[in-house]
Structures are given as structure tokens and as C-alpha cells.
């Protein structure tokens, strides 16, 4: 590893974006263990590296430890052994480090009603960057930039409870984009969305120029948005490879309680996707 930064001075917290050198992965998890206070062992040595600009789907059955892993990425849970390093900065209990880690790791939680707690969309999107110390015009431009990225600019002064579920999820994505994260972590981004909202969100996520870790049960969605996938089961990473290859391995999926939707052909979908992306490039 090169260019390790163990502590970030508080002054850098507001301005540090993109100050990480290109060779350092966005996310580097090593030997992560965790047991809950009741004795339940959730993580048994997780290793995961996501390079800058990588798009990785984190798959696994319920109870595999996916949410526990996500809560480790920004230091909400810790202390079970192992390290989490985000863009070269290792998660510790130090306050300034944690503040910077939470800027770098943008978690979009599954229920947008948990994420959007302020009376208007714009205020909620401003909450994260304001916690970083931004004020005035700079804060305003962050909010506008983030809402633009998810196509919600015209709804900035509306109350979250007056938006559709799909719109709320897009705003939830904007609330973390406003912090210009090093890595975007999405917890079940397609859950509870109708097919149109699901497709619109996919289009938005595909355009975002950030590293992405997507926790999901929605295997076609993983194939559509992430070229690489890892399977987490019983607290360990049990498979890591190209999403299309993993989804084509019916036996592997079955072993870890993962299932494709009825009638879905991963090989055909992968070919269509490749053709579509080729078309977009041209």
C-alpha cells in the first residue's frame, strides 16, 4: 500500500475531496470480525477490496451479515477485529477521523423515511455537508449539484412525505452525494420500487461517477449495474467474480440461498447488456 494517511487534520475535513492518490483503493476491508453483544457472530473474517471507480454488488441471503458489514464501513460498528480503510484512511475511534470517514462513505439506507428526517428536501440534502462545516453559497451549490444528479431539483422545497417512494429514494441518494463521497453504499436500492422507478433509478446510478457498493437481493439489478459481485454468507465472502459469471453458476447461487427471478436467463441478459453498452459507447 502506498500513501497511507492515518490521521486527517480537522482543517482538511471540509476540503478533502479527491485528494487521494489514484492507486489507493476506495475501500479495503481486511480480516473483519464482529459479534453482537448477545453472542451472535455476524462477521467471520471479511476481506474485500473495491478499486476506485469500481462497481461491486454485495449479494447474500438474509442474515448473512450484509448490513453488519455496511455499518462497519463508516465506523458505526467496530471493535471486533480487522481493519476498514477508505481511500487510504483507516477507520479508528478518533472523532476527526470518523467525521472524515463518514464524509467518504455515503450510505443510502433501505427505507428513505429513515434517511429523510427534515421538513424539506433541500434541508435534508444540506444536512450532511452542513455537518462538514459548509455554509452559505458553497452549501447551496452542493445541494443543487446533488439534486441535479438525481433529477430532483424542482422538488427541492417539498416535504419528503409528499413525494413518491421512488422520488424519496432518489433524494436519499442525493443526501449522501452532497457530501461528495469516495464510495457510495446502497442498501437494497431497488426494494419497494415499481418497475418504472426501478429503471429510472438504475439510469441515475449508472451515470454517477463514483465508486459503488450495492447491497441487494435483486440479482438482475446487480447484473445491470455492477460488473463485479461478491457473495457474503455466514459472515464470510464465499465468492468474488464477474457478476455475469456468478449469476450463471446455478449451483453456487443455490448453495447460498440466492435465486434468479423465474424465467430470467443471465447469459442472455449479459449479452443484451454488453450490446446495449457497446451501442452507448458508439
Amino acid at each position: 500500500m502506498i500513501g497511507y494517511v492515518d490521521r486527517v487534520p480537522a482543517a482538511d475535513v471540509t476540503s478533502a475531496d479527491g485528494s487521494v492518490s489514484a492507486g489507493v483503493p476506495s475501500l479495503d476491508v481486511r480480516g473483519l470480525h464482529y459479534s453482537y453483544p448477545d453472542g451472535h457472530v455476524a462477521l467471520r473474517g471479511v476481506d474485500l477490496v473495491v478499486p476506485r471507480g469500481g462497481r461491486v454488488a454485495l449479494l447474500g441471503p438474509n442474515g448473512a451479515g450484509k448490513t453488519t458489514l455496511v455499518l462497519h464501513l463508516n465506523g458505526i460498528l467496530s471493535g471486533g477485529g480487522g481493519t476498514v480503510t477508505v481511500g487510504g484512511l483507516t477507520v479508528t475511534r478518533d472523532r476527526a477521523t470518523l467525521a472524515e470517514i463518514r464524509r467518504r462513505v455515503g450510505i443510502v439506507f433501505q427505507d428513505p423515511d429513515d434517511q429523510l428526517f427534515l421538513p424539506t428536501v433541500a434541508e435534508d440534502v444540506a444536512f450532511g455537508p452542513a455537518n462538514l462545516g459548509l455554509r452559505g453559497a458553497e452549501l447551496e451549490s452542493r445541494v443543487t449539484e446533488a439534486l441535479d444528479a438525481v433529477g430532483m431539483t424542482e422538488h427541492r422545497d417539498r416535504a419528503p412525505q409528499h413525494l413518491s417512494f421512488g422520488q424519496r429514494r432518489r433524494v436519499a441518494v442525493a443526501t449522501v452525494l452532497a457530501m461528495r463521497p469516495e464510495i457510495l453504499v446502497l442498501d437494497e436500492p431497488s426494494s419497494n420500487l415499481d418497475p418504472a422507478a426501478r429503471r429510472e433509478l438504475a439510469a441515475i446510478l449508472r451515470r454517477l461517477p463514483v465508486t459503488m457498493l450495492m447491497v441487494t437481493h435483486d440479482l438482475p439489478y446487480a447484473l445491470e449495474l455492477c460488473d463485479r459481485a461478491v457473495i457474503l454468507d455466514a459472515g464470510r465472502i464465499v465468492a468474488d467474480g464477474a457478476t455475469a459469471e456468478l449469476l450463471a453458476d446455478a449451483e453456487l447461487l443455490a448453495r447460498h440461498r440466492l435465486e434468479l427471478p423465474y424465467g430470467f436467463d443471465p447469459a442472455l441478459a449479459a449479452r443484451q447488456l454488453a450490446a446495449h453498452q457497446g451501442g452507448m459507447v458508439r
Partner: protein
Amino acid sequence: MGAGHAHVLYRDRSSPVHRLPPEVKITAMVVFTVAVVATPREAFWAFGGHAILITLVAALARIGPGWLATRALIEVPFVVFAFALPFLGSGDRVHWLGLELSVDGLYGGWNILAKGTLGVLASLVLAGTTTPRDLLLGLDRLRCPQIVTQIATFMLRYLDVLVGEARRMRIARVSRGDDPRFLWQLRGFAAGIGALFLRAFERGERVYLAMVARGYQGRMPDVRRGAGAAGLRHWLAAATVPLAATGVATAAAVLG
């Protein structure tokens, strides 16, 4: 509440009263109410003066008397006691329509009724011209403790979510044949309240986690406090009403 609109009392209009910054309106309302309460109860004309002031502001804010009157009914349970006073009071008595009423009790009842009604009307004019969101902003600018405004902000945001959850639970219960008509059939409803409490509790935890994930460290960033705050012009404009009321109250106290 079908569409989840939380503005129960707010009347969406365009008026000079609506445009005033919220902290100015809150202060004016409080000072006006204090002036009303300080007015001696025997000075009937002074209460007429206060009522005219409210009517003028309501007219300026384009809030109709019918709306005010129906919303003001909320005070009824609180002033029932005022109607009992003339019968319960002691001292001199007068006879009216065959009833023997206490003079002191009549004054006491009038006092509660007049001051209560004027206070409720003033609050309604404030609520009708200021969104709940702006009320909280105004309280924040008036240096109300942040813990209070934060709790109220959460209520404002999550009331609809909670009402929605309660409604879905009720529909699910009724769909399975629960049809409570009598008190002893409320078991399902009571269990539902318990489940709702647990869900709200769990949601609180998840909301907190999501806040921490975005860098929350125990204090809300004061982003909006400065922008759009009241200037001298606003304070002077809004001061007219409480100043007039204070004048009326002072005159009533001096003249007796």
C-alpha cells in the same frame, strides 16, 4: 390527511401578514396575548378594542370569520368551567330570567371566556398565516432551546409516517374480521398501539443511525437561522398590533 398534507391550520394565501418573518409574528402574538390577559375584566370596551385588532389582522391576512369561528371551538372544553362560575360563585347575587347568579362569578366567567377566546383567535391567526415549518424556524431564531425545536421538527416530519403505519395496521386488522364496537373489543387496537410504539422506537434508532452516517455529532447545523431573518422594518410593522393592544390595556387599567 389522505395525501399526507400536514398543514392542518395553515391557510395558503398571499398577504402582508403571511409574508412577515415567523419570529416577528410569534413575538407579536405573545405580547398581544399578554396585553389581553393584563386587561382589567371590568373594562368591557377594551375587549372590544382587542377584538377589533384581531379582526383587522385577520382581514389583512384574508382569513374568513367562518374559518376562525369554527376553529376557535377547540377552546370549548377548556372554558366549560367559565359557564359554571356564575352558579358557583359567592357574594352579591343578581336575578335574571329566574336564575340567581353570582356577580363575582359572572365577572369571573366573562374574564375566562373573553381572554381565552381572544388568545385562541390570536393563535389561530398566527397558525393560519405561518406554516408549521416556519413556526419552528421562528422559535429557533428566538433562541428557543434546540432540543425543543428538534423534537417538534421530528414530530412534524414523522407524524404522517406514523399515521400511515397506524392506518395500514388498522386496515390489516379490519381485513381479518376485527370490528371493534365496544370497549371490551379493543384488544386488537390496544395491541396495535403497542406494536406502533415499538416500530416508532425502532425507527428512531434507524433515523439516528442514518444521521450519524452523515456526520451528525449531537448538534444540528444552524444553516437556515440567518437567511430571511426579520429586519427592523418587519419588527416595526408587526409591533403595531401588540402596541395598540398594550395601549388599550393600559388605558383600561388607568381609566378603570
